[in-house]
């Protein structure tokens, strides 16, 4: 009976830990600091976009031949980060790894924010962004349609699908906890707010049953979705006849790289939230351990991608070899070696459990991976274009101030919604954690 009482209290406390966070937010000052920083970045974003729209893409560093630059680099980078969220929640859900429960919620939120950033970039990248919707099929008097054989059209559908599915997935997961927040809320305002967005969830057994089905199947589909989405991003490059792009290794290479950078960023966020909010009970060192392992695994696979790319070039010779040479010793060699060093050297620490369980080390490694993967995207885009086929069209690329300012501004687009989420919504899945505790307790 006492044990029962204890369990019951644990459920309650878990709820308190998670659901009461928004209701009685502990780190208000810290949050406001972060949030005002994020708002500043958001302002910078608007300035950069206004400048961009009023002058045209000329304010960026793009040239012929390097007519893709930071916009595409960051598009791929942000989307890659996003994938970890889906992978963690979906892949681990269907493989029934319970430790995910403490991570999946904010990982998914992170995904949403990242996908929004990623989705904005290709639009800003356009010469005539106000016509971006021409990529979507819609009935018009001219009977002109999108070109469905173009990788860009594929990307458009992929990113759109990914955004919507991630949103559904995330909302399904958070719905019961919103109800819980509704019931815990003391102030009228919160009661109404949570009352409305929880749609009157009552924990009805039949509801739960259907919820389980929908949630599980969505998760099952989400995994191949992630793979398809980033494979298509890679086709954006490998569909063209440009040496260094036109390679069959690209799809898996991109997907793994994406997961790699994603796990790293999840690690960063987990550690940061752990430090900022009293979640140590829920986001434990074990979670960091698991994240470390995931990062290590995907990292090593990415390393294999690097290797096979080099192999391809050596095998193919000709232009491919020339491009490899440009990457290793060309004007932008820093991006190649920067990627190799930042991605794989610190990563090796994660072979040791000790380091995986040390938030400091894990954070350092994750940061280096995040930067390293950005450099990889830079390397992939720029080093292939700046010296492609004709000697006469060799060129150069130098990001301008407005390239960087927009990138920094995107940080605002990413952080503002994420911080609002942390502040006002249950950042960890309470119902699933309770479920997990229940199982732990029973089959213990």
């Amino acid at each position, binding site marked *: 009976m006492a044990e029962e009482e204890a369990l019951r209290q644990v459920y309650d406390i878990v709820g308190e830990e998670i659901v009461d966070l928004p209701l009685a937010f502990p780190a208000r000052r810290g949050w406001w600091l972060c949030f005002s920083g994020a708002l500043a970045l958001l302002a910078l974003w608007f300035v950069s976009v206004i400048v961009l729209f009023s002058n045209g893409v000329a304010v960026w560093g793009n040239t012929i031949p390097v007519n893709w630059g930071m916009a595409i680099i960051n598009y791929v980078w942000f989307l890659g980060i996003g994938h970890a969220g889906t992978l963690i929640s979906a892949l681990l859900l269907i493989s029934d790894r319970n430790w995910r429960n403490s991570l999946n919620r904010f990982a998914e939120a992170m995904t949403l924010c990242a996908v929004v950033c990623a989705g904005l970039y290709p639009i800003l990248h*356009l010469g*005539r962004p106000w016509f971006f919707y021409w990529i979507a099929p819609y009935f018009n008097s001219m009977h002109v349609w*999108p070109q469905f054989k173009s990788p860009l059209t594929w990307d458009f559908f992929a990113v759109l699908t990914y955004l919507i599915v991630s949103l559904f997935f995330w909302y399904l997961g958070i719905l019961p906890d919103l109800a819980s927040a509704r019931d815990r809320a003391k102030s009228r305002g919160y009661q109404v707010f949570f009352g409305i967005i929880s749609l009157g969830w009552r924990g009805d057994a039949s509801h739960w049953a259907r919820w389980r089905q929908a949630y599980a199947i969505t998760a099952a589909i989400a995994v191949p979705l992630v793979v398809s989405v980033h494979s298509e991003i890679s086709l954006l490059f490998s569909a063209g006849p440009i040496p260094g792009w036109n390679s069959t290794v690209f799809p898996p290479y991109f997907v793994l790289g994406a997961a790699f950078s994603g796990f790293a960023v999840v690690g960063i966020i987990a550690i940061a939230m752990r430090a900022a909010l009293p979640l140590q009970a829920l986001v434990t060192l074990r979670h960091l351990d698991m994240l470390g392992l995931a990062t290590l695994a995907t990292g090593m696979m990415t390393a294999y991608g690097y290797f096979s790319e080099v192999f391809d070039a050596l095998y193919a010779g000709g232009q491919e070899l020339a491009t490899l040479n440009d990457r290793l010793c060309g004007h932008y060699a820093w991006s190649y070696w920067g990627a190799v060093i930042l991605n794989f050297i610190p990563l090796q620490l994660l072979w040791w459990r000790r380091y995986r369980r040390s938030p400091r080390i894990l954070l350092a490694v994750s*940061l280096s991976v995040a930067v390293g993967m950005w450099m990889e995207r830079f390397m992939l885009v720029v080093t292939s274009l700046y010296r492609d086929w004709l000697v006469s069209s060799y*060129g150069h690329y130098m990001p301008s101030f407005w390239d960087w300012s927009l990138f920094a501004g995107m940080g605002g687009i990413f952080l503002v919604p994420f911080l609002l989420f942390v502040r006002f919504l249950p950042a960890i899945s309470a119902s699933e954690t309770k479920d997990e505790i229940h199982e732990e307790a029973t089959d213990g």
Partner: protein
Amino acid sequence: MTTGWKKALAQLHGQGGRRFWRGLDELADSPDFRKALATEFPGLASLDWQRRDVLRAFGASLALAGLAGCEANPDDRAMPYVVDPEHLVPGHPQLYATAISFAGIAQPVLGVTNVGRPTKLEGNPDHPASRGATDAFTQAALLDLYDPERSQVPRQSGIPIDWDSLDARLAAQAAILDATQGEGFRLLTGATTSPTLLRQIDLLFARWPAARWDVFEPVDDSALHAATRAAFGRRLDVMPLLDRAHATIAFDADPLGPGPYQVLNSLRWSGRRRAFQQGDGRADLLVAEPSPTLTGGRSLDRLVAEPSRIRALVEALARIFGVTREAPALTTKEAQWVERAAKILAASKGRGLVLVGSEQPAETQALGWAIDEKLGNLSVTSQFSEPLRPSPDSDPEQALNALITDMAAGRVNMLAILDANPVYASRQGPAFAAALHKVELSLHAGLWHDETGHACRWHAPLAHGLESWSDGRAADGTAVIGQPLVRPFYTVRPVHTMLAAIGGAFGISDHDLVQQTWTETWGTLQPNWNQTLVKGIAPEPPRVALQPPPVRLLPSVAFARPTGLELLVRPDPTIWDGRLANNPWAQEQPKPVTTLTWDNAVLIAPALAAEHDLADGDEVRLSSDGVSVTGAVWVMPGQASNTVLVHRGYGRRFGEVAHDAGFDVAPLMDQRSVTLTPTGKRRKLAAAQEEHAIDGTDLVRVVDYLDTAPKPPKKPAPSFWEDKPLTRPNWGMSIDLDLCTGCGACVTACNAENNIPMVGREEVRNGRRMHWLRVDRYYEGDPADPKLHVQPVPCMHCEDAPCEMGCPVNAAVHSPEGLNLQVYNRCVGTRTCSSFCPYKVRRFNWADYTGGAPESMKAQRNPNVTVRARGVMEKCTYCIQRISAARIAAKVADHPIADGAVTTACQQVCPTAAISFGDIADPAAEVVKRKASPRNYTLLEEANTRPRTSYSARIGKERGDG
């Protein structure tokens, strides 16, 4: 909560969750969130994009006078080329046979006018000196007509006045001069071949015998004339007849290079070359020169030689044929080259040609003629004639100095400068300007209120050649009549009317003056007049080619090899002596050899650069006894290591477009040697092409003459996609790299035809130039002495086009006629097409390059070609507007489009007819014949994009040549 918490734990430890909950007491502190942020967003690079430069490219800063919607109507006395409806059909361009003068030489053209606005100049196909071709200068000349900075009103000491007050002053002066027999009157004109102008001058000086006439032409034939006077006893023009020359040995001579004779020389050279390709005789060309030229680039064997070595080389050659006994010491390389030259000359005895550059001393040129004389070439491969551009002075330089002295001494009370700019373009510019103050009535008449205009007290705006009646002589001496394409935009005067006014006769129209001249020549005006206006050639008794008297060999004046670096000062290949400096088309036209735009540079050899540790753009000071000039260095492969080459025409002191470009070399103009000292500063030079070395690639293919024997055409590489059957018509292009000299006329013609915006120095540096057609320039082999290659690259119009695959909105699509279309108004600007294009021929409107253009420049635009907006991709269309025009015409006449009915702008302008375009589904078409040649190849075959533009390989070795 803590109590409940602890209890819960206590209880749990007995239970399953141990592993899970152990983490609790290990609390690790971690860095805060914003640090993570900080590392995610690295520092910001500096902004380096300046809209100003874009605008400058248009010369847009000037508020423009009444040209917006200028009422442009043709002179009704002008006669349209071939037969056209009397009344003007909107959208139906009218052609007028006329001529535009360049440095006094008339370039016969057909002016294309749309709704009364001249939009393009085409070569006159009926004229032997054009055959439908023009050079880049003539193409660009059109834009001067629309230059917003053209002088529009008369001025007195810079202040705008009306014509009446100027005329009043002139009338008064004329009266005085009549009294004094023209005492103290001086006339200074640019070089001219205009019979009317010469007649007017004769009349004027018959009236004012005490007056004097001088000619100032910055780049003239005086050196040649001096040489012919020494060698033949009289001043003569010498035209190389390259079409007859089976073997040409050029010493520091560049007949194919830019200049008023380029088109004629290129026509003739290509005529011979084409015959040689078909197995008729030879077309050997050997060149010894200090710095790469277009001629050098075409040569079979190019010897890098300092100017001062030329003398020795010619002597050595002369000695072999026993013309002289001088035995100069030669290096083995030089000796081999001379031997080869001798061999080649001997092989084509009586059909050879020795060309010595007119920059060379008279005795060296004489030696060259002596060799030709000895071999019986002289009257065969060179044409001697009376000077085409008559000059009253044997030595124009002396004459100019004398004029300055007279002015300074106050012996000149009226100086009229017609269409000349001595204050900028002559070495004595400053002295001239100073002396002008002593002249009571100094009058400058010109197209711009330029340096000389500012220095003179009075200024009169002249009409552009396309706004006025005139006449002149083409490079081959035939006379042409220039009729106006449009009434003057401003209250300006044609040069003839202006000269009449100087003589005190007002209100005389240029039309009447020109008619008078020709009435006198023909005895009666009609029907010749109308025929001339329609056809563009004025009938005259044929000019008899002079038989040159025996060559008088001159005592070889032992000249010491100059100490220090040898300096060469040559006219600029795209803006010449500076007359095109305010012309964006000319400024952004990549220099044929360096691909530089918007600047001149100090050209030095790689060895010299290494010696002084200089790179492209490093600034150096060139100094020689007291005078010095600073400019940026450009490292020129294949230049003699002891030679420095600078170009004239830059460092103008007027003009929105002109004034900030390059440096003025006037102070050094008569120096032969200089010392070079780096200043440590840098100037950002804008080269259209960053890299030039193509060793190990087959971008430009070279075959032996023997390889050109017909072979079975080789199969195209396999493709996933089955080839579609060719419907008719189906367009394709072939470019003969054996004929292309790289003159770049095609680039400017394309600008004019397709409304291509100029973007300015900064944007060219950023790799954002908009030229649809570029001429790639390659060096192969040792930078000290490389092989030079050129390759025009338009859109390849690939059959399996990667660009089309990339476009998500169907803006890049394939037409049924095989064109790779770019649909501007559908383009959203993803730039995927350009990323996927292996040839990088696509151009993107990064900014609004067209909207900011001055109204006047907008008036030039071709109404049949869309003006592209910001944010859209564009590229070569094979001149689709011309294709549709031909299609419509064919429909109207109800017959299929004939071969040759469509000529692209680049093809039409090409002086060597290197470009061929037509229906590749028509077995009889010339383009099909060319593509059938064993020399035919496509660029980047390995990319398997199946280009429609193909190339004919260069012929590297000559027939029977080891």
